[in-house]
C-alpha cells in the first residue's frame, strides 16, 4: 500500500451513479453499421488511444520476476489480475487529461543565468495575484523564526525563538491568531488541519487551536527540538534534547512509541513523505531511519565526516539531501542503495534544507538561500548551477516550500520572507485530499474520512509495498506445522501409479515397465536441466573472463 497519494493522479469526483450490472447477451454489432443519427461516420472509431508511457506510470505489477510454472486455474487468475491492472491504469492515464494546470517555470534568455534573476524581476513579470504571494514580514523583535505551511498550503504558522507564535491565512493575509507563549519556541507545526497547532516550547510540547487557545500541554514530550507530523497516521513525531524520538498519536492522544536514539541531542529531523519514516541526523555523521514499530533504527547511513546539520527527503521518497559540518551537500538515493548521487562542497555549508513538491532543493546558508532544480520531475536536483538565489535580511532559521504554490517560505532572524520560486509547487491539487479552497464543512467532512482511513502506526516500514507481499516465514512455518500434524506432505507430488489396463496388459511386468518409463523420463528431465545450468555457468564464467584481459602476471595471483 502507499500512504502518499500521487498528487494529481486523481480526479475530482464524478457524479456517476452506481450502475447495476445485468448480464445481457452481448449484441454483436458491425462497426460499419455504427452510424450517428446524421448519418456521418465516426472518423476516429473506437476508444481514443492512450500514450503508453503514461499508462506505464500507473502500472504496479512487477513483471520482471518470472513466475514458476502454474496451473491453468492459477494462470487464469493471474490473467484476470493483469487485465484489471491494465484497464485501471488506462483509465487513470485517460483521466490525466483532466489535470489542466501546468507547472510554472523560469527560463533565462539564451545564455542568461536564472540565478541572476532576483525576486523583484520575477514579481514584476508575474500577474498581480502571484505577485501578492511575495512578501516580507519584518519581525525583528522576537528572534529567528521557524515556520510551517498547512497541508493544503493555505495557512502559515510561525514561531519566533522569543515566544512569538502566529498563524495566518497567508493568501488573504488574514491573521488567525497571534500570541506570545512567554517561552522559547523551538519548532512549530500544523497538525492534520489548520485548526490545530503544535508548538515545541522550551520545556514541553503545547497544542493550540487556531484561536491561540492552549488545548494541551504534553509533558511527556519535554525539551522538544523538532516536530514532524505524519498526516496519514495522525502521528506527531518529536525529537528531543534528551535523545528520545517520541510518536504521539494526535487522534487519540496517546504516545505510540518513545524510542531512544542513543545518539545524544537530536536536532535534525525530517520525514520521508513516501513511507512515513523519520530521518534523524546525528553528530557522528550518520542519518538514522526510524519507524515506531521498531526499537532500533531501520537503517543507518554514514553520510558525512562531521555531524549532520540538515536532512530533507523529497516527496517521492527517492532522494535524500543531507548537509554536514564538512560543508558538503549530498544527495542520496534511498531506493535500497543509499549511495550518494551527487556531492557538492558549499562555501559555508547548508544549515537548512527542504525539497519542494516538484523536487526543487533549497539550502539555507547563512543569510542566503540557494535553490537547485533538476531536469524533470522525478530527477534529482543537479547541484552544478543554482536555479535561484536570494539574500535575506538575517540568517536563515527555517525553510519550507508551500504546497501547491510556487512559493518558498523562509524564516530568518529578520522575520518571514515568502519568495516566488517558479515551478516549485504541484499545479494540480487533489480536491478530495487537500483542497486549498475548501470550506469549513468540507474540512470537517474530510477530517472524518481521514480519520476513518487512518493508517496504523505499526505499518510504517521502509518499503510500504512489502505489505502487499506474503509473509514467507510464517507461510513456511505453517506448512511445516501442517506436515507435522498430518504426518505427510499433502502438497507433495504423488508417485506415479500406472493405470490398470485390460486384456492382459496389466501384468506385473508391464506395470513395472510403465513405472520405469516415467521414472526415466523424470530423470532425463533432471539431467537436462542440470546440463543447461552448467552450460549457463560456463557461459557466464567466459563472459566474465573475457571482460578483463588476462595478464601475464596473473599466474602469480594466489
Amino acid at each position, binding site marked *: 500500500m502507499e500512504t502518499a497519494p500521487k498528487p494529481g493522479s486523481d480526479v475530482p469526483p464524478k457524479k456517476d451513479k452506481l450502475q447495476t450490472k445485468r448480464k445481457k447477451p452481448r449484441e454483436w454489432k458491425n462497426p460499419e453499421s455504427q452510424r450517428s443519427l446524421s448519418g456521418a461516420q465516426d472518423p476516429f472509431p473506437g476508444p481514443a488511444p492512450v500514450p503508453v508511457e503514461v499508462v506505464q506510470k500507473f502500472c504496479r505489477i*512487477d513483471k520482471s520476476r518470472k513466475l514458476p510454472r502454474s496451473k491453468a486455474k492459477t494462470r487464469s487468475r493471474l490473467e484476470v489480475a493483469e487485465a484489471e491492472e491494465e484497464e485501471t491504469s488506462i483509465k487513470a492515464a485517460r483521466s490525466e487529461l483532466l489535470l489542466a494546470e501546468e507547472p510554472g517555470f523560469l527560463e533565462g534568455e539564451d545564455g542568461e543565468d536564472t540565478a*541572476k534573476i532576483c525576486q523583484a524581476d520575477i514579481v514584476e513579470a508575474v500577474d498581480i495575484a502571484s505577485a501578492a504571494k511575495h512578501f516580507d514580514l519584518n519581525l525583528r523583535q522576537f528572534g529567528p523564526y521557524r515556520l510551517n505551511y498547512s497541508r493544503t498550503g493555505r495557512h502559515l504558522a510561525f514561531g519566533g525563538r522569543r515566544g512569538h507564535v502566529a498563524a495566518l491565512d497567508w493568501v488573504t493575509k488574514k491573521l488567525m491568531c497571534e500570541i506570545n507563549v512567554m517561552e522559547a519556541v523551538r519548532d512549530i507545526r500544523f497538525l492534520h488541519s489548520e485548526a490545530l497547532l503544535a508548538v515545541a516550547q522550551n520545556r514541553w510540547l503545547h497544542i493550540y487551536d487556531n484561536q491561540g487557545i492552549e488545548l494541551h500541554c504534553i509533558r511527556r514530550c519535554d525539551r522538544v527540538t523538532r516536530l514532524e507530523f505524519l498526516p496519514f497516521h495522525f502521528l506527531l513525531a518529536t525529537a528531543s534534547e534528551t535523545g528520545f524520538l517520541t510518536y504521539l498519536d494526535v487522534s487519540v492522544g496517546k504516545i505510540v512509541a518513545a524510542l531512544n536514539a542513543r545518539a545524544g541531542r537530536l536536532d535534525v529531523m525530517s520525514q520521508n513523505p513516501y513511507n512515513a519514516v523519520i530521518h534523524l541526523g546525528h553528530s557522528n555523521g*550518520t542519518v538514522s531511519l526510524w519507524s515506531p514499530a521498531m526499537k532500533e533504527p531501520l537503517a543507518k547511513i554514514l553520510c558525512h565526516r562531521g555531524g549532520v546539520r540538515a536532512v530533507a527527503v523529497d516527496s517521492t521518497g527517492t532522494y535524500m539531501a543531507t548537509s554536514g559540518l564538512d560543508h558538503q551537500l549530498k544527495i542520496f538515493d534511498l531506493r535500497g542503495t543509499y549511495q550518494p548521487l551527487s556531492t557538492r*562542497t558549499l562555501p559555508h555549508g547548508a544549515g537548512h534544507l527542504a525539497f519542494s513538491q516538484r523536487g526543487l532543493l533549497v539550502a539555507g546558508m547563512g543569510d542566503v538561500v540557494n535553490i537547485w532544480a533538476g531536469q524533470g520531475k522525478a530527477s534529482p536536483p543537479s547541484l552544478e548551477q543554482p536555479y535561484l538565489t536570494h539574500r535575506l535580511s538575517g540568517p536563515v532559521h527555517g525553510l519550507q516550500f508551500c504546497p501547491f504554490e510556487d512559493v518558498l517560505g523562509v524564516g530568518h532572524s529578520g522575520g518571514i520572507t515568502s519568495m516566488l520560486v517558479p515551478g516549485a509547487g504541484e499545479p494540480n491539487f487533489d480536491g478530495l485530499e487537500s483542497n486549498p479552497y475548501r470550506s469549513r464543512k468540507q474540512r470537517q467532512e474530510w477530517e472524518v474520512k481521514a480519520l476513518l482511513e487512518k493508517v496504523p502506526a505499526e*505499518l510504517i516500514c521502509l518499503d510500504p509495498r512489502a505489505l502487499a507481499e506474503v509473509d514467507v516465514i510464517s507461510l513456511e512455518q505453517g506448512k511445516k506445522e501442517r506436515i507435522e500434524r498430518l504426518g505427510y506432505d499433502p502438497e507433495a507430488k504423488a508417485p506415479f501409479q500406472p493405470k490398470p489396463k485390460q486384456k492382459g496388459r496389466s501384468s506385473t511386468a508391464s506395470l513395472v515397465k510403465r513405472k520405469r518409463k516415467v521414472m526415466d523420463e523424470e530423470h532425463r528431465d533432471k539431467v537436462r536441466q542440470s546440463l543447461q545450468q552448467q552450460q549457463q555457468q560456463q557461459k557466464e564464467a567466459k563472459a566474465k573472463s573475457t571482460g578483463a584481459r588476462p595478464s601475464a602476471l596473473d599466474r602469480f595471483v594466489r
Partner: protein
Amino acid sequence: MTANRLAESLLALSQQEELVDLPKDYLLSGSEDEGDNDGEREHQKLLEAISSLDGKNRRKLAERSEASLKVSEFNVSSEGSGEKLVLADLLEPVKTSSSLATVKKQLNRVKSKKTVELPLNKEEIERARTPLEQEIFNLLHKNKQPVADPLLTPVEKASLQAMSLEEAKMRRAELQRARALQSYYEAKARREKKIKSKKYHKVVKKGKAKKALKEFEQLRKVNPAAALEELEKIEKARMMERMSLKHQNSGKWAKSKAIMAKYDLEARQAMQEQLAKNKELTQKLQVASESEEEEGGTEEKVEELLVPDVVNEVQMNADGPNPWMLRSCTSDTKEAATQEDPEQLPEPEAHEVSESEGEDRPVAEEEILLREFEERRSLRKRSELSQDAEPAGSQETKDSSSQEVLSELRVLSQKLKENDQSRKQKASSEGTIPQVQREEPATEEEEPLLLQRPERVQTLEELEELGKEECFQNKELPRPVLEGQQSERTPNNRPDAPKEKKKKEQMIDLQNLLTTQSPSVKSLAVPTIEELEDEEERNQRQMIKEAFAGDDVIRDFLKEKREAVEASKPKDVDLTLPGWGEWGGVGLKPSAKKRRRFLIKAPEGPPRKDKNLPNVIINEKRNIHTAAHQVRVLPYPFTHHWQFERTIQTPIGSTWNTQRAFQKLTTPKVVTKPGHIINPIKAEDVGYRSSSRSDLSVIQRNPKRITTRHKKQLKKSSVD
C-alpha cells in the same frame, strides 16, 4: 719402550720386597695401610732413634746371627743400613762404568717423561662438547655423581667415613627392634581388625578422632608450624575421603538404613548423621589464592597483573601440589624447579648454544624460553633478597630493576606468542611470515614495549581484518608509536594484495566515498560574513566542531556495523557437556573432537542487504507488527507466493483509482435491487436434484413409496 717396561717391572719387584720386609720390623698398627710414603716411615725411625738415645732400650743393630742356607741376592736384608734396598743398587756395578751411564740417563729421561695415561685425564673428560653432554654433566654434577668411574662414589665414601663399626651395630639393633615392634603391631592390628563388633570399631574410631584432635590442639599451642603441617595432612585426608565417594548414601548399609528409616528412629538418626557427614565432606572449601611472593605487597600484585599469563602458569606448575599438574608439565619445567636454587645456575652459554640450534624446533624453543624466564626469575629473587638485606633506601633502583624484569618478561611472552603465531602461519600460509619477523626487531627494543600495552599483539584474525580493510588502515592505527611499524608492514602485505583487491572490487570504498573532493558551488550570493554577536559565538563553536569532525567517524561506524553483523548472524548451538566421558574441571576443556561432534552449526542465513554497502547498516530484524498484517496463508489455486502477490499488487482503493475503475474493481458478485422479492433458495436452483443422504434414510424406511415418488419426480422433470 722396552726399557720403560723393564723399569716398571723392576719397580714392582722392589715393592714386593718391601712388603715382605715390613712385618719383621714394625708392629703393624692395624689401621695403618702399607705405608706408601717414605716420609712417615722415616719419621718413625727418627722417633725410635731419639728414644734409643737415652740408652735404656738401645736399638740393636741387625746382624746376621744364623747362617743361612743359601746366600743369594734374594735373601739380602737392608736392616740396619737405614736405607731402602733398591734392586737397581744391587744390579749396579760397584764401579760405575762409563758405558752404562748414557743408558741410565736415557732410562731416567724416559721415566721422567709424562706419558698419556690410559684412563683419560679428568680435564679431558670434563670438556663437554655437545649440548647433550653438557646437560648430562649438569645432571651428574648436581647429584654428585662421579664423571669418571672410581671405585667408590663420593657419596659412598662419605657414608663409609661417617659410620663406624659400633655405630653400625647399634643401628642394626635398632632396626631389628623396630622390625619386631612393627610385626607385633601388625599382628595386633590384624587381630583388632578381625573383631566384628561394629560398636567396638565405632568407639575406637571416635576415641582416635578425639585423641587426634587433642593432640592437634596441643601441637598448635606448642608448635604452630608443625600444626599447620598436620592440618594440611588432615585436609588431604579429607580430600581423599571426599574423592572416595563414601557417605554418599549409596552403600549397602545406607540403603538398608534408608528402608528402615521410616520405622526406626535410630536408623533415621544414623542416616541423618551420615548425611551431615556427607555435607561436611563435600563442602567446597574457600581456598585462599596462594601468592608466592607475599612480601612484595601491592607492587608485587601490580606486577602480577602486568605479567602475562604464561609466566604465572609456569610458576604454578613448579610449586603447585597437584600431582596431575606436575605430571603434565614437561621434564624441562621439573628441571627448572630443581634449578631454583640460585647458586646452581646453569651456564647461559649452554642455553645460547641450544637456542641457536632450536630454531627449527619451535617446541624446544619455547621450553628454552621458559627456562630463560626461570633463570631470570631466580635472578630477580636473588636481587630482591639482596635488597631485603639492605633495609632502607634504593627503592628507586628496585623499581627500575623490577621494571626491567617486567620488560624482559614481556619480551619473553611476546616471543612465545610470536613463536606460536609463526607456527600457525606456517600451517596456513607463508605470506605473512615475513611480517612477523619484521615485527621482532621492534619488540627487541624495550622502551616502546613499556609504553605499549600487552594487547598490542595481533592475532591472525586481526591481521586478516587489517588486510580486508586496508582502505582505512591508517585510520585504524591505535597509537602513533606504531606508525613506523605500520608503514613497514604495508609493503609486506603486498603479496596478499591481489586477493583483497578482488574482494574489494565489489565493495565501494568507504573512505573514498566520504573524502572525495567535490566541486564547490559557485554561488552568486556568498553569505555575508559579518553577523550578529551570538551568531559569531555560534560560528566559533562550529569551527571547533569542524576541527574535531571526522577523526574517527568512519572507524566507529565500521565497528558498529561489524557488531551489527555479528549480532544478526545465527548462533551455533554447542551441546558439549564438559566432564562427560572425560576429566573435567577448571582449566580443562572438552576435546576438540567432542566439541566438533556436538556443535550444531546454524544454517547460513541469506546474505545481508548491506553486504556491499559499506556506509549503510540495514536492520535485518523482522518487523512483527508489519508481519501481523501480511498474508500468511496461500489461497487455493496458488502454489507459489509470487503468483498470489501478483494478483494483489494493484490497489483497489479510490485513492489510487479513478472513480469508474474503483467501482468496477469493487462491484459485488451479486447485486440486488431494493424492493424486489428474493425467493428462498431451492435445491433445484443450485442444480442439485436432492440431498442424497436424506434419500438414503427415506429409502431405508420405506423403499417402495420412495420409488414411486422418485418416479413421479422423474416424470415431472421429463415433462419440464
